[in-house]
């Protein structure tokens, strides 16, 4: 019985990190209607950032996360001007192809630099063990940090001038422009923020699991499912969607073969898309 509870709790803890990964994707979609297919590559960039700062440069693991977020933001703003800005307002396929191309370039460069060699960031945090089941300290820390980052994002979006500008542009770009908001700069800011969230989630994932340069693809796919569950364009929904996905995975595993969980996940994905095309928790345009 405790095994089932342990699986559910583990699912929720990992689901929170899925949620953080999806927040970046959904924020970018919500503000500029761009599906950012470099999302997986950005998650991997965060993983490698943590590896080099913590394992190579010797920074304490968790103190390496803020510089990764800042670097991710800077990179995101650059990427916006290079690959995304000129396709804003064009048909969605254009931005999809632009970010897909950027993703191929980034993954290609990464593969030629590192191959698919495994990287590992050893993190030692005391966990909790009960009846043979262990909740690792790293999972708990990742969930706590995810909640803190989500809270900070909420405060930024709802309590700061720049955050309100992002929400205004997401609501109606023309009206925001007429009110004197420099919308192009706001779009770059939102894209940078989305990439910073992806890099941060990558760094947190790297504290949990070893990774290769190709690890981002699986998390990008999960981010899409989470985004649909939580509602396109809704960061808070993404976090809840992530927790819901983790909960689903954790609750299913004790009762069915693990290979079935991804099938069930995508059935849920399709059902939600059909029944609730705007997502279960969408209030983006409200």
């Amino acid at each position, binding site marked *: 019985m405790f*095994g089932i509870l*342990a*699986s559910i709790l*583990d*699912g929720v803890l*990992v689901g929170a990190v899925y949620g953080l990964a999806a927040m970046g994707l959904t924020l970018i979609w919500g503000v500029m209607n761009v599906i950012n297919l470099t999302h997986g590559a950005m998650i991997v960039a965060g993983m490698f950032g943590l590896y080099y700062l913590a394992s190579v440069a010797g920074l304490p693991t968790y103190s390496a996360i803020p510089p990764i977020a800042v670097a991710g933001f800077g990179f995101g703003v650059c990427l916006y001007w290079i690959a995304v800005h000129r396709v804003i307002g064009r048909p969605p396929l254009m931005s999809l192809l632009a970010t897909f191309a950027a993703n191929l370039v980034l993954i*290609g460069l990464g*593969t030629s630099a590192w*191959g*698919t*060699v*495994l*990287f*590992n960031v*050893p993190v030692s945090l005391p*966990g909790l*063990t009960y009846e*043979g*089941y*262990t909740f*690792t300290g*790293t*999972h708990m820390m990742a969930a706590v940090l995810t909640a803190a980052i989500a809270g900070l994002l909420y405060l930024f979006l709802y309590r700061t001038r720049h955050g309100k500008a992002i929400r205004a542009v997401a609501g109606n770009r023309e009206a925001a422009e007429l009110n004197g908001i420099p919308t192009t700069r706001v779009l770059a800011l939102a894209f940078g923020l989305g990439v910073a969230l992806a890099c941060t989630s990558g760094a947190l994932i790297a504290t*949990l*699991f*070893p*990774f*290769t340069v*190709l*690890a981002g*693809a*699986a*998390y990008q796919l999960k981010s899409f499912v989470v985004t649909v569950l939580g509602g396109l364009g809704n960061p808070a929904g993404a976090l809840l969607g992530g927790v819901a996905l983790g909960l689903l*995975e*954790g609750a299913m*595993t*004790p009762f069915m*073969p*693990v*290979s079935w969980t*991804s099938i069930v996940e995508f059935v849920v994905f399709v059902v939600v898309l059909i029944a609730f095309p705007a997502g279960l928790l969408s209030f983006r345009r409200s």
Partner: protein
Amino acid sequence: MTRQILVAAAAMLVALSAFAADEDTLTIGYTVSRTGALNLDSLAQERGFEMWRDEVNAAGGIKAGAKHYKVRFVSYDDQSQGGRVQQLYTRLIVQDHAQFLFSPYSSGLVATATVISEQYGKLMMSIGGAEGKTYQLGNHYLFQTYTPADQYLSGAIALLKEKNPHAKIALVYSDDPFSKAVASATREQAKQAGLSLVMDESYPPSQTDFSAIINKIVASGADALLGGGHYPDGATLARQLYDQKASLKWATLLVAPDSPQFASLGPAAQGISVPSQWAPQVTYKPDFGPTPAEFTKRFEAKYNIAPGYHAAGGYAGGMLFQHAIERAGSVEPDKVAAELNKMKATTLWGGTQFSTDPKSHGLQLSHQMVLTQWQMEGGKLVKEVVWPASAATAKVAFPYR
């Protein structure tokens, strides 16, 4: 008129020189996963090919009768995708005129490439394709160097039976053709050994988190874990077994722990064992070619890394072709195939004998696997051969942690 004669003479000279160059060159084609999930093992295999080629060419080439052939490779990136393999092998044969073929890496890709090599009647040395089913389709031109997948965990089963006859096994494996073939045979072998299987489950090859699976292993009461799949999943499973303090006495995982990079997991790697096609410490006495120790020394000097079985397999694959060509005294495919069919030899790779039964032609019959285990020696992780006892370089650590 004079001008026309000069042009014709020049054309003849060019044609003759090209013909002469072709005669002295043996072209071997293959695809390698330079990108994609199989990149690590596939590139290790290619290093083995390249080392063999460089050594052969430095020694004057392959001697076939009165001629010496320099080895030339033509290769393409298959991106670790079966869909690319057939197109690229067709190109290797039709456009690049490859005379012989090396297989791509991994069972799934070998099965796909075999369709093309058989269609065009090209000899293909399979390295990295362990799944036995591919060799039971009535092929004529495919020769397997690896021990078939159904033998991968037989050493671990034998060791468990000796160390803990009441072992309760969790069989947890990746949902790919190779791992499923291994699991299928392991089920039977565990039953025959009188060991109980308390969990038997596959996971998707893209699995990223094993927390729930490990909880399931704990709930099953298993004290031994057998399974895994390829590199990323196996390494993640090993790390999470350590992080979650899984109450196991034994863990044997496929493929991943064989890579030298597995040591980057640190204490999570300790005690994990892996069935290996080959290990640098083996002491085979070869009928031809270098000894395992000589090969290891030369490989380390060339690449600054210890060779794993993928690299040794690549080298051995080239050497087996070379030996067959030299024995045949010809590069004619039929003559080389006849030599491969009657080959019964020991090399640095171990025993090699191919099945000549039409139902399983090319299946490897005599190569044996070893079981290696990561052990801590002087504060450093070292991979030691622990099974069979006759080949062991260290005592097995049981329980593994």
